[in-house]
């Protein structure tokens, strides 16, 4: 199990819960399970979700493993100049 923290707008689609416990070994599995449990997540995943693991932001590496004791935070995919 990993504990995942959601950013404000995403939390709203999870019925206001900003922390979820999910059994997932990597980012890909995390997204798949989130989409199964919360269909409203799908458009967010399509639009792009970045995953911060212990403060390091991963935008695209869906194979990134989720360490059991890591702090996992979901963020919208960022734009830059």
């Amino acid at each position: 199990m990993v504990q995942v923290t959601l950013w404000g707008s995403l939390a709203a689609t999870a019925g206001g819960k900003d922390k979820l416990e999910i059994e997932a070994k990597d980012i890909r599995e995390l997204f798949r399970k989130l989409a199964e449990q919360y269909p409203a997540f799908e458009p967010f995943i399509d639009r792009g979700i970045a995953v911060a693991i212990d403060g390091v932001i991963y935008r695209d590496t869906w194979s990134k493993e989720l360490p059991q004791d890591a702090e996992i935070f979901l963020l919208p995919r960022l734009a830059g100049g």
Partner: protein
Amino acid sequence: MGFDPRYLERNFTSVGTRPVRPDGLDKVTGRARYGADFNMAGQLVGAILRSPHAHARIRNIDTSKAEKLAGVKAVVTSADLPDLTDGNAEMYAILDNCMARGKALYDGHAVAAVAAIDARTARKALKLIEIDYEVLPHVTDVDEAMKPTAPVLHETVFTEGVEPTPDKPSNVAKRTQYGHGDIEAGFGQADFIVERSFKTEQTHQGYIEPHACVANANSDGTADLWVCTQGHFVYRQHCAELLGLEVSKLRVTSSEIGGGFGGKTHVWAEPVALALSRKAGRPVKLVMTRDEVFRASGPTSATSIDVKIGARKDGTITAATATLRYSCGPWYGMWAELGAMTSFACYNLENVKTVGYEVLVNRPKVAAYRAPSAPMAAFAVESVIDELAKKLEMDAVEFRIRNAAREGTRSSYGPVYGPIGIGPTLEAAKNHPHMKAPLGKNQGRGMACGFWFNFGGQTCTDINIGPDGSVSLAVGTMDVGGSRASLSMVAAEELGIPYENVKAVVADTSSLGYNDMTDGSRGTFSTSLATISAARNAIQVLRERAAQTWDIPVEDVAWEKGHAVAKGEKYGNLPSLSLKEIAAKAGNTGGPIAGHSELVADGAGVSFATHICDIEVDPQTGATKVLRYTVVQDAGKAVHPTYVEGQYQGGAAQGIGWALNEEYIYGTDGRLQNAGFLDYRIPVCSDLPMIDTQILEIPNPNHPYGVRGVGETSIVPPLAAIANAVSNAAGVRMTHIPMSPPRILAAIKGEQAG
């Protein structure tokens, strides 16, 4: 074997030196080719007709007269760019922006385009296009646009992110929220609270090179595009999607780029040029005028921001909150959201809450501008921080040091920080001689901090070793400020050869795998990762070839200082083989030697800066003079320190222009009144002092050399640093950017009037 990106302390040979850039010679001799410097045989000249109205329904477009004009070869409207976006809102916005569909949404919105044998004929043809507009009420101000009585741009927009979803459409496209803790409880613990509202006006990236391209679309579905862009692979994707082309049949070649700063991150006129070429059956060159660049290419947001911060007597911030309203132009983006994420990122806060509103207005589509959205948020927050420090009778730097985020701090946007540089930049600023220099009459000193995420992304690099041992490095991220130099240095470092032996080029989209664009300060970070990885793959091949030559196991061959070395006593007599020697024999040891890398460069390190500036204010006129300016920023590792300094100085200069002078001015008719460099005045040489820089190097743990991005953070602190300096010089708190002479004078007079 997987590539290990973790940081390892090491001694560098090439990295950290300051060689002359490889593209420099062409640029000082006038030979470098930018977007408008390319021509194709038989090319036509394209031109775009733009709406003179801020908001108007297009009832009819009659192009018949234009089509009949001698020399006109094609006329296109939105009918020639059918909607193929399949529900992708982001792409639809780009399409709608390229060519108005049904409604013109801002002064300058493209409504039709022509291709003709020369510029004069094209201009004449534009005048012959008849458009029947139904002019609609418009709104250009961010606060006005939020009012329930404001004209609504899209009947289909219902505010996202609020429960329940409103049943009436509005210009508030989205609400987002960040933070943690209990704000009310936090303010309850505060001895002092400062609360203020701020506004910032819309600015443009102001790249000197207008958007330019040459498009050649063939009847067999293949096409070529030569264009100035921050991301030719992204432009390829956009154009292919919007025109229904197969991605691999559209070859995009990036020219040299004459500045982008975020403004060349998505397509503007390129699909129109391709549509014209497709219709005319000939290549089309399309170059924007400066007027078009201002009216119709992406400026940054105008904002309206409220900030409230509370602190205890001992200087600890107990709660902080901000409400940020950012204009997006006619289509929503994540601009307020980025402001909401970055606003308090410098601080260690127990209770913090930020709320962002994306607001639609009848202005051009907002595009990213260097650390997009962060400078305005920093202006508001850092102004209040300064004011609070004064109330607490604490030194502004000490107050910030006391509350600075550090490793382990939960950031205001959510994640917990790893090793970061805000504390060290503040300490460096505190100890900088600039802080102690005397000030004269009407002079004030200000400082402020800034943050940007930095990011990585998809990246692909090829290294090919020539038979003479020289090395060509093909990268797919546009070089916007010297990255061909820094990446050549990285390749040289890994391979153990001199910098001069490496030649870096930006490859076209048919010659290399997909690359995300050069944005988010990712160019050197991401592509150096891919270059290191490609070089290590090439070294593996070089070792194998040496092993073959010596007829020994490859495990016994090491790579040291550009040479294959046989390891072990039994090979004591074997002389090492240089890269050049191995390359010379490549034909007989297995063919050409290369190293490739395709990767996602994740793990970019966040970046912080602290700026100090001295400003003199003329109390009679409100005019300002920047006397001294110092940038302190964490680079992780400065690969080419001179170009890192250049990024710091350039960002500071853009921030100075934004703070003091630059703004989009709209008339009550919704038309932009200053669409030129005379009236939209960016800083000139005589406006600025030398800009001192101090590079700190706090290694990014997720890069072998410790590199972080450096391009964007430097524009974040200036608005606030200058506002604090002006406030200290003139004795009034400035809350509206830019602080042009009339605004400063009005503030001084307001203060005197009490």
